C-alpha cells in the first residue's frame, strides 16, 4: 500500500515545496570586506553564462505541477551582446513543438506553437526562462555583497516586461559548488532560481536546473548535448526570419 501512495503524494509534495520556496524574499546583502574584492567579484559574475553568440542543444526534462513530467530536446541560439535569442522545443520523435524568437528590444515572435504549448503566455514565459539561463546580464550591477551564508552576490536590475522592477542575484560561487541565479519580482519575491554546474570555456554549463516558484510552479533540468559558436549577424535572429508554411509537394 505504501508503494502505491508514494507517487500520488509526490506531485502535491513537489508542488508544495515549490510554493514554499516561492515564499522566499529578496535577502539583505552584507557588505563586502574591501573594494578589490568587489572588482574581482564583478568579473566573476560576468563570467556566468556565455559571452558570445552560440547555438546549443540540450535534453530537457520538465516537472510540472502535480508531478507530471515530460522529456524533450531544447535547441537554442543566443546572442548575449544584443540580448537576442531563438529557441525551440523538439519532441523525441523529432516534431517541433514550439519555436520562438526574442529579437532586438526584447520583442517576442512565436514562430510555431502546437497544443498545449500554444497559450498566449507560454511563449513569452519560455523565452524569458531561456533568456535567464543564456543571456545573463552584462551591464552594471546595482550593488555587490554577500549573503548571511557567505556567498558573494552581484545584484542587477532585470529589464523584462514580465518582471517590472525585478532584480537578479548572480552567485558565481554558490554553496553547492556551481553558480546560481535568483530572480526576484518587483515585490521582492523569489520567482526563479537557476543552479548551474560544469562550466565550459564558452561560459555554458553542462547542467542547469531552473525552478519556477509560486502557483503553477515547475522545474526544468537541462543537460548540454552539443554547442558551437554562432555568427551574431546570422539572420536567424531577424524578426522576419523563417516562414513556417507554404511548401509545395515535390
Amino acid at each position, binding site marked *: 500500500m505504501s508503494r502505491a501512495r508514494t507517487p500520488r503524494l509526490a506531485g502535491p509534495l513537489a508542488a508544495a515545496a515549490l510554493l514554499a520556496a516561492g515564499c522566499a524574499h529578496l535577502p539583505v546583502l552584507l557588505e563586502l570586506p574591501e573594494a578589490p574584492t568587489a572588482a574581482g567579484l564583478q568579473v566573476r559574475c560576468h563570467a556566468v553564462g556565455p559571452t558570445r553568440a552560440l547555438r546549443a542543444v540540450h535534453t530537457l526534462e520538465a516537472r510540472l505541477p502535480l*508531478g507530471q513530467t515530460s522529456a524533450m530536446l531544447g*535547441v537554442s541560439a543566443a546572442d548575449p551582446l544584443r540580448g537576442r535569442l531563438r529557441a525551440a522545443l523538439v519532441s523525441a520523435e*523529432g*516534431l517541433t513543438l514550439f519555436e520562438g524568437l526574442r529579437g532586438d528590444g526584447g520583442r517576442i515572435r512565436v514562430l*510555431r506553437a502546437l497544443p498545449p504549448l500554444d497559450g498566449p503566455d507560454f511563449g513569452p514565459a519560455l523565452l524569458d526562462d531561456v533568456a535567464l539561463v543564456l543571456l545573463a546580464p552584462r551591464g552594471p550591477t546595482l550593488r555587490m555583497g554577500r549573503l548571511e551564508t557567505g556567498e558573494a552576490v552581484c545584484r542587477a536590475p532585470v529589464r523584462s516586461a514580465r518582471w517590472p522592477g525585478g532584480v537578479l542575484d548572480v552567485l558565481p560561487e554558490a554553496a553547492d559548488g556551481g553558480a546560481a541565479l535568483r530572480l526576484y519580482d518587483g515585490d521582492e519575491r523569489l520567482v526563479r532560481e537557476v543552479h548551474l554546474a560544469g562550466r565550459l570555456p564558452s561560459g555554458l554549463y553542462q547542467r542547469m536546473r531552473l525552478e519556477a516558484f509560486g502557483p503553477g510552479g515547475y522545474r526544468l533540468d537541462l543537460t548540454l548535448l552539443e554547442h*558551437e559558436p554562432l555568427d551574431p549577424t546570422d539572420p536567424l535572429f531577424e524578426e522576419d526570419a523563417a516562414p*513556417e508554411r507554404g*511548401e509545395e509537394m515535390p
Partner: protein
Amino acid sequence: MPRCLLALAALGALLVAAPASPRAAEGAGWATSLDEVRRAGAALRSVQARFVQTKAMRLLRRPLRSEGEFAFQAPGSVRWEYTRPLRSVLLVDRGRLQRFAFRDGAWRADAAERLEAMRVVVEEMQAWMTGRFADSRAFAPALLPPRGELPARVVLTPREPGLQKILARVELHFGARPGLIARILLVEGPEASTTIEFQDIRLDEPVAPARFRAPGEATAP
C-alpha cells in the same frame, strides 16, 4: 485542436509497413499501385531494425541525430524505442498501448490519460502497417512513381486543417523488397523536417515476445 492530432503527428513516423535499408531503395518497381502496396504490406510477418533519425531545422547547422530500434510482429505488435539522446519506448501489443521514459535511472510509464490521445494513432498504425493507406482517416494518400533519385513513395497529406498546422506531409519511400519502406520523411514546413532511415533489417524472423513487454521494472507514473 484535438490532442489526438498532435499525438498522430508526433508518431507519424511509426506508422509504416516495414522498414528497409537505403540500399534497398534502389529498386521499388513493385509499388505500382496502392493496391499493390497493400498486398505487399499484408504479406510481411515481422521486421526488426535499427533506425537513425535526423531532424533538420533553421536553428541547427547540422541535423540533430537520434537513434533507436524498431520491431514489428504481425498482426499488430510494435516496439519503437529511442536509445539516444532521449530514452523512451512505445509498445503496442494485443491492442494495449504503453509508453515508457527513462528518468532518474529507471523506466517510468506514462500516465494512462496521456496515452488516450494515442489510441487514434494506433488505429492509423494498424492500417498503414498493412499498407491500407486508403483507410486512413487522417491522411490522404497519393502514390508517386520514381523520379530521379527518389524511389516510388506514398505521400500522405493531412486531411484536417488542425493536423495540417502540424505537418505539411509525410513521405514513405519504398525499398526494393515488396512491402518495405526505406525512409520516412516528415515535413513540418519549408525549413523543418525529420528523416528516419532504417538499418540492419531482419525480415520475417521470430521476434522475442519480451520485445513487446515493458522495459526493466517500469514504475508507475
